[in-house]
């Protein structure tokens, strides 16, 4: 059984690609066969975050247009054997993605026996975002604790509930989860930032993970190594917990509070 998971948000720059890359690695690290697909046609970022940009020969649109086979376009990750990347194309033609073409590629991945297909959605609520979510079984809605991100997430939830194949067929719809990221416990404690509970209450949805704001994310993208692979990082542990929860484990949330600072650090600052 293949499960198709869309990573979506409405608003741009909230952490969808970061999340897609880390969740894909996390699932693959646990032995699942994973294909992570970049739906952000024209922008193409996932390959950079995954660190495979120089190995992209063919892309998603090439497969749809029949320029190559899916096998030729799938990039095998060098770190985790069961992980594959399908890069987005840099074409300006947004119509290059068609519902029928997407369905064909997904069907082929399913026939190939992948356990998970992760769809990294572009921002917005236009065609690309629509196609990324259309065939999904589950959705990870990435949200920052900030007004415009939360509002856009709610619009995305509305689309998930109406403009997806599962919604149209009326067979239970898409299973939705929230993933809060760029969470800053210190600012939450001081009342400057909404808390997990605030966001959960507004959107009325279960939270699959809370990823702290972390300098390790930038370092990870600089290096082309998804942050989950940096075992020293809290962001890595938070993503790994989210992956475990996706797989059905019941884990308490971590990193909701500011790390305790040492006595001297508190006295002398820094």
């Amino acid at each position, binding site marked *: 059984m293949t499960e198709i998971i869309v990573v979506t948000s409405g608003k741009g720059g909230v952490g969808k690609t970061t999340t897609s890359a880390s969740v894909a690695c996390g699932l693959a690290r646990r032995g699942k066969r994973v294909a992570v697909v970049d739906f952000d046609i024209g922008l193409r970022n996932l390959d950079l975050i995954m660190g495979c940009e120089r190995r992209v020969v063919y892309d998603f649109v090439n497969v749809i247009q029949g320029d190559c086979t899916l096998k030729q376009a799938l990039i095998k990750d060098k770190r985790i054997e069961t992980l594959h990347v399908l890069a987005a194309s840099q074409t300006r033609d947004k119509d290059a993605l068609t519902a029928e073409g997407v369905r064909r590629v997904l069907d082929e991945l399913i026939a190939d026996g992948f356990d998970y297909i992760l769809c990294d959605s572009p921002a917005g609520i236009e065609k690309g975002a629509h196609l990324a979510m259309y065939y999904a079984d589950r959705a990870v809605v990435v949200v920052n604790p900030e*007004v415009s991100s939360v509002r856009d997430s*709610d619009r995305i939830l*509305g689309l998930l509930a*109406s403009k997806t194949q599962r919604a149209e067929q009326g067979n239970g719809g898409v299973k939705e989860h929230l993933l809060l990221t760029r969470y800053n416990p210190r600012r939450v404690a001081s*009342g*400057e930032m*909404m808390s997990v509970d605030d966001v959960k209450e*507004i959107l009325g949805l279960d939270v699959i993970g809370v990823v702290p704001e972390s300098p390790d994310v930038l370092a990870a993208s600089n290096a082309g190594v998804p942050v989950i692979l940096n075992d020293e990082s809290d962001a890595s542990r938070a993503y790994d917990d989210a992956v475990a929860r996706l797989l059905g484990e019941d884990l308490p949330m971590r990193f909701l509070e500011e790390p305790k600072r040492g006595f001297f650090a508190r006295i002398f600052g820094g």
Partner: protein
Amino acid sequence: MGLLALFRRTPSSASVAKERLRIIVAQERSVRGSPDYLPLLRREILQVIHKYVNVDPEAVQINLGQEEGHEVLELSVALPEKTRA
């Protein structure tokens, strides 16, 4: 600013955000799945009302509901205090 004001708790910026979101999300959900013309209808009704009374745009509520098998368009306008007397 009086000394008391210093001690009075102003709501934190996070709770202001939460309250605003609670309202806008509820409003947007209430019109979700309803016909596309609803926002335009609301705006035009507002313009007509404005010819007679100066109401706050937030005072006009339009909802589409179900009642005994048929759809009901509900319009409610909260008039400003002065004009009511």
